[in-house]
């Protein structure tokens, strides 16, 4: 094997692929927007970390805040594991081109595993943890406790990272899926049925961290080493799959949903295409696959949020009540930019195409909102009506707004590019459009305020009524959108062709 420094070369290539990634190839305005959004995200986490001690003191007045926090530490990292399961990509660089080179597969696997640690998922909790531990440990307890707590949390994250890496790189997934589902279900059932036991174990673990108990660190460390070595073994094997013929996993028309869509007259052809676009592209499927999390996460959030503050965040429901459609339709028509020439020159009717798209995302939103409403019935019953009203508002008014303004989306986007931090297709105009869609709800809240019912009921009434009007008139605004698109067709098609 060659004696040159392969890891160094691979790291250089890794850096270049990051530095030259498409999300840096943006206008200055979008770059500023990216930095702004990143900053806001970190700032929110930091503020949450800084204010968490007061909240915990309020809820658990007899317990030091860091002890209260430790009692939910395992829940936090269980949620982190579930998030990683849906969102974290496997550390699979474009390794195929390196395989014919004189580099051992073992070295390549080692490099991939090492590079996998440079993931945003291994650091995203720290903007929250650092200010929290600064306030609760560094000054009140000791600097040693502060650093040990951070190290312990890092190790818990590392266990999740290693578990997900093993899970996503080992050839043959069925066994691992079963193992992980059993693990998560076991932890969930354990935590749900015996919360006091679970919280007690969690608290003891956290306290063992700050006490410097070596066993508290040894167990997660051993798990990390175990899963990393399993991953390395699996990776070497996976190279054969990656270097193979690049076969798609899903044979043509194998999915039952696709077959079902194919049988539906009039809209079936478009729905089948829409579904395949969602399931076979990284960015589109990345957004869609976060939805199971939202269905559970939103009722959980509303369960813990105090009832009296509902009016403060009720307008945020606009982002979730339309399901995945709210995100997808922000880039309406750009998703097809790579093949819009085909749509435009074949035997398709633009109005029918848009109608099919509208029904598809409304039905998808319905399939997402129904389980969420059922969960809300248990977690926060007072929010069921506002959420249902908002569903009608979003699928009526907001979808109409996104379709109509979507005609201005003349940027080509690649639905197969990475989902996370992918600002392709985002423009200043689009940003303002989304802000307008979100703030439109405030106007309805003002109207609801003057109605002679409770806030939630009034809000539900106003949103449902306006939404229903737009849903009933959908053929009219869809025709208007199709006509508008027809007027802008040449401009948009020319922009879609720009690479």
């Amino acid at each position, binding site marked *: 094997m060659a004696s040159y420094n392969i890891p160094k070369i691979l790291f250089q290539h890794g850096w270049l692929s990051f530095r030259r990634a498409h999300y840096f190839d943006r206008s200055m305005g979008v770059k500023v927007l990216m930095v702004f959004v990143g900053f806001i995200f970190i700032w929110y986490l930091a503020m949450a970390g800084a204010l968490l001690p007061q909240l915990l003191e309020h809820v658990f007045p007899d317990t030091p805040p860091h002890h209260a926090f430790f009692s939910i530490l395992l829940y936090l990292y269980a949620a982190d594991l579930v998030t990683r399961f849906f969102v974290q990509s496997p550390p699979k660089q474009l390794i195929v081109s390196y395989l014919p080179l004189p580099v051992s597969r073992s070295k390549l696997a080692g490099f991939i595993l090492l590079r996998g640690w440079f993931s945003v998922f291994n650091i995203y909790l720290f903007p929250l943890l650092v200010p929290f531990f600064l306030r609760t440990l560094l000054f009140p307890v000791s600097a040693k406790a502060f650093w040990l707590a951070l190290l312990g949390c890092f190790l818990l994250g590392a266990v999740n990272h290693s578990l997900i890496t093993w899970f996503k790189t080992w050839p043959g997934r069925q066994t691992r899926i079963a193992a992980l589902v059993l693990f998560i279900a076991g932890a969930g059932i354990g935590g749900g049925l015996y919360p006091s036991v679970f919280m007690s174990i969690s608290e003891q673990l956290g306290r063992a961290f700050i006490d410097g108990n070596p066993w508290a660190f040894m167990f997660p460390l051993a798990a990390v080493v175990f899963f990393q070595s399993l991953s390395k073994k699996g990776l070497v094997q996976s190279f054969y799959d990656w270097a193979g*013929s690049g076969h798609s996993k899903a044979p043509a028309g194998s999915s039952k949903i696709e077959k079902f869509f194919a049988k539906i007259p009039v809209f079936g052809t478009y729905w089948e295409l829409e579904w395949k676009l969602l399931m076979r592209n990284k960015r589109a499927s990345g957004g869609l696959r976060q939805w199971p999390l939202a269905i559970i996460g939103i009722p959980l959030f509303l369960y813990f949020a105090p009832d009296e503050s509902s009016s403060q965040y009720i307008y945020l429901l606009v982002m979730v009540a339309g399901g995945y459609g709210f995100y997808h339709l922000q880039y309406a028509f750009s998703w097809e930019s790579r093949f819009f020439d085909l749509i435009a020159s074949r035997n398709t009717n633009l109005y029918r195409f848009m109608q099919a798209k509208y029904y598809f995302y409304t039905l998808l939103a319905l399939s997402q909102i129904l389980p969420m409403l059922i969960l809300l019935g248990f977690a926060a019953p007072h929010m069921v009506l506002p959420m249902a009203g908002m569903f009608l508002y979003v699928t009526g008014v907001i979808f109409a707004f996104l379709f109509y303004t979507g005609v201005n989306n003349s940027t080509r986007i690649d639905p197969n590019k990475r989902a996370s931090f992918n600002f392709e297709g985002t423009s200043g105009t689009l940003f303002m459009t989304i802000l307008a869609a979100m703030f439109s709800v405030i106007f309805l809240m003002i109207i609801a305020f003057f109605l002679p019912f409770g806030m939630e009921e009034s809000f539900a009434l106003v949103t449902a009524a306006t939404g229903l009007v737009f849903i009933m008139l959908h053929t009219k605004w869809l025709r208007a959108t199709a006509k508008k698109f027809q007027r802008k067709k040449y401009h948009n098609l020319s922009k879609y062709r720009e690479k």
Partner: protein
Amino acid sequence: MTAIRIEQLIKKYGQQTALHIDHLEIEAGTLTGIVGNNGAGKTTLFRLMLDLIEPTEGQAMIEEQAVAGSDHWKPFTGSYLDEGFLIDFLTPEEYFYFVGKLHGMDPIAVDEKLKVFSRFISDEVVGQKKYIRQLSTGNKQKVGIVAAMMVQPRLLILDEPFNYLDPSSQIMVKRMLKADNEARGTTMLVSSHNLNHLTDICSRVILLEKGKIIKDLTPPQDDLEEVEQYFSIQAEDQDEK
């Protein structure tokens, strides 16, 4: 019967004129070749004929109806210009079924039509469980050509169909076009850089240069040496520059 009529068709990009055709008529059932150097305006002409770009002036008509802003020509027109016509996250089979469905064909009918092209698309394209984005450029080209032809259009528009294909496949494309034109009387408009390919199959060859028609020939009556000579002079001019 006139299948295609072009009147005073001009396409400008800023001050640059990409295409300027005063008058052109193409009779139904003819196999017409468009030849020209890069930037001659071949693709611009095809995009205008498929209503994918807006003419600055004039109009293109298919079966005596203006193309711009109309859908009347879509049910009987098959076309493939470039990869922008392919849906890259579908497998070739799915793409054929999708295009077939748009033209009212069920999967059985599509499978039946595909049999005609079985030698051309071979085992490298179908039955591979590969998405179109995973195919080689040549195989993508084959998918586009087959999808355009299998719907048995009255009008077929192909831009550079011989590009990226191996010599055997190029010959097969020529045979397929010729056979379809003779059997069904399909009006065909095919562009190429390669004059020989076009003279082999076309009953009419139009030479485009800098957006204008400079020759309109009907082989074998017209001597195509003149055209070859034209390209030779162009090449020599480039060498001198």
